[in-house]
């Protein structure tokens, strides 16, 4: 911008007649776009309150959550026909692609308690013939899905979803053979559970 244009622009701007430590002030009109931004925001706020807190009856975030959760529950119930049986799971456990997908889930989710080699640690050993909560494929699926909360096994169904639960079960089964002996034992670390916090002394 040339100095000339600048000066002429200033020439018609009124200076407020005061000076503070040499600082002077113009008294220019407020830019229209700025004013409309201000008015627009105030009008928006007015109508927002008007709708959400007076006349409207909008869905609250909790109502929306409940609607979405019941839709999920409904979908889960109606897809019940596709339940997996033992045979299908054993078949999956020999499918290289499914097993490697299951391994991926295992290494991020289960490894912290059952170990990289599945030999256990915080959780039980998954490679031997001893089973605590049932060793049939569908029983393994049930344990992963629902968890055994008082023994410290979280319920992974809501987090992983059916597909990944089936994959990770297939991965575990890939360490076993169909028809293998299933040896039921009580929990090796009795009451390793966390879910029962110290009995609440009267607060």
């Amino acid at each position, binding site marked *: 911008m040339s100095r000339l244009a600048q000066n002429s622009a200033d020439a018609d701007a009124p200076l407020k007649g005061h000076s503070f430590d040499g600082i002077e002030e113009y008294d220019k009109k407020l830019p229209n776009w700025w004013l409309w931004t201000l008015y627009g925001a105030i009008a928006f*706020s007015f109508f927002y309150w008007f709708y*959400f807190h007076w006349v409207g009856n909008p869905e609250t975030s909790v109502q929306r959550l409940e609607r979405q959760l019941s839709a999920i529950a409904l979908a889960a119930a109606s897809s019940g026909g596709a339940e997996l049986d033992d045979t299908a799971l054993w078949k999956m456990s020999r499918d290289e692609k499914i097993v490697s997908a299951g391994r991926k889930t295992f290494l991020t989710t289960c490894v912290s*308690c059952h170990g990289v080699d599945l030999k256990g640690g915080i959780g039980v050993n998954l490679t031997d013939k001893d089973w605590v909560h049932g060793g049939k494929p569908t029983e393994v699926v049930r344990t992963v899905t629902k968890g055994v909360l008082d023994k*410290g096994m979280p319920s992974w169904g809501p987090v992983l*979803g059916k597909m990944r639960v089936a994959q990770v079960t297939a991965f575990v089964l890939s360490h076993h053979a169909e028809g293998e002996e299933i040896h039921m034992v009580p929990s090796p670390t009795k009451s390793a559970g966390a879910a029962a916090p110290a009995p609440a002394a009267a607060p």
Partner: protein
Amino acid sequence: MDTGGGKATIEYDDAITRMFLIAGILWGAVGMAAGVFIASQLAFWQMNLDLPWLTFGRLRPLHTNAAIFAFVGNMMFAGIYYSTQRLVKAALPSRLLARVHFWLWQAIIVAAAITLPLGLTRGKEYAELIWPIDIAVAVAWVIFAINFFWTLARRNEPSLYVAVWFYIATIVTVTVLYVVNHLQIPTGLLHGYPIFGGVQDALVQWWYGHNAVAFFLTTPILGIMYYYLPKAAGRPVYSYRLSVVHFWSLVFIYIWAGPHHLLHTALPDWLQSLGMIFSVMLWAPSWGGMLNGLLTLRGAWDKVREDPVLKFFAAGVTFYGMSTFEGPLLAIKSVNALSHYTDWTIGHVHAGTLGWNGFMAAGMFYWLAPRLWNTRLHSTALANFHFWIGLVGILLYIASMWVSGISHGLMLGATTEGGSVLKYPNFLDAVTANRAMMHTRMLGGMLYLSGWVLLVYNIWRTVASGKPVNGTAEVFVAERRSHRLTLAEALTSTPVMFTAVILACVLLWAIGWDFVKMLALLGLIVAMVVAVDRVESRLQGWGEWYDRLLANSLPFTVLTVFAVLIGGLVEIIPTIVMHKASTLEGVRQIPYTPLQLAGRDIYIREGCYNCHSQMVRPFVGEVLRYGDYSKLGESIYDHPYQWGSKRTGPDLHRVGGKYPHIWHLRHMENPRSVSIGSPMPNYPWLLQNRADLGSLKAKFDVLRTLGVPYPERSQDRLAQEAAAEAKVVADDLGKSGAAVEPDREIIALIAYLQQLGKSEQVPKATTAATAKPMR
């Protein structure tokens, strides 16, 4: 005295400015270095060094407190002492008070730098300092206020310049905010519990936290902009009337916006909505400041090319405009659903602190130093280089935080299989995905810090080449009382009355019930029409009225106090009165047992809240990941509340009972033994230190005073109960193969973590009707 008046020469107290300037520069370097260090911890967990006092959770508060109170605090005091004396043509009345202010402030900073790494904290963001230091802060602030208003009282300039308006707003508002948010009852010399708990504490905390940004990092710097920018540019300020409009709208609106830090939490809906709409309305008032800064540079842009001072100012004001646009954007509920708890917020804050505060500080220091030491800046080229390296640093910082924040939010919220399961069930997926961004952020911070080191060197050489001088001025001591507005006149004047009526109508409309609502709306419309009519016909008169108001600092200050108090009162009082509302959703927190409380205080000491929230929002993605969403009643006994503001790690509100005790033990000892790739520090000392059970009596007594339903128990009894609980946990760990003495801190911490998210059902409150009108 009559008009009289004579000529006098006054000498300004510039020594105090020199002291604060040097302190601001040095603490700035410390605060930024702490920032780079903790950024490196987020990139490489090994940088936590397995030392308690160097872990992220304890150092992050040190970084934020140093940046806000040590760096910007000292810079602000330097800027205000220098400019106020000149703007009102009066020397500081008490050199002694100013020195007490200076040394007390430095002592506070040193105390903070010692206590925070030791884990002595209140567990509330930007309000972590323990109560003895809090009192010192309040005293130092009041000393500053006395000296400031005393200077105004002795002024030889009849009217108050816009910079002084912003200084006044800063001083009165920070006093109110700081005092209210630090109300607490000590349990000992180094510890206390805030008097507010749960949702109340959350609301008060963010009313404070948000307005610490507003009145500690924004208004004083705007005042500084209004003095130093036109001085450096040699140009008149763009628009006086814009100053008037944006000052009043800014101080009035800012205070309401605090709840935008709590969107989608258990905070009542009507407060969330207020937080959002006032943030949106704040956009234009903030940009008014930016416009007055940038447009003042019209006609001086040729100077910007050569002068580093103007470069820093121009960029600083631009960053102010950018972050005050981003702020309202992030406060919109649907945007916040994505951005909250992520690095996006961190990037937003740093656009403000590095861009606005840091660059305005640099510009001011480069401008002041040659004048205070009567010399020339050592190297303009070096200052220009500082500008460019700093600018690149900021851009790397905020760009990496945008990428990290948005991808973090999207990944954690993503669902698959028809929205029924999480796409990324492992929280760490979102952490590992952003590893490169952590490195980029660290690099940006390093560049910015390097620029600051150049400033330190440049100013040091400048100071060494000159010698200190104090400014002087010739003043005409004039009697000026005749046309000043008295307090009573000011409060009963037409503009104030109109504002009061309009505000009352809006409030009644918003919170009233049917008939009152309609009446208020009608009243509002009538008042607006009349006001507009009056403004049209009497604009001249109102302008003169404002000129008279500016000639007296008392009514001006009182009106400012009113403007800032309204928002806080409307939002906080109903929340405190409606304590019963805590049972609205039918669940109530179970008060902590002695061992759990001891564990909770360890959680707070280690600063876990810096990375972990305890607030599951009502979204499908969160409910699938963490469990049921958090209700209002589930934290009412939490003094302080621990909802958190950032999820570097997962939410913990429903972690209780999710894993066995042994999992937590292994995880605290070495997080990577159970969570591969976790950036969390190791906490081996928790397995060695004995838990502090000796102060349980004092702590339970204070909590009972604050309304937590605990029976009276002796110290022995509390310690016995804690020991009995500890034995149960330790026995269980023993069965899982880990031998830990029951008196260790880890046992208490596990007891606390396993209790999280456990609540009891209570009958739904019948008081629901009282909350209805506002829903």
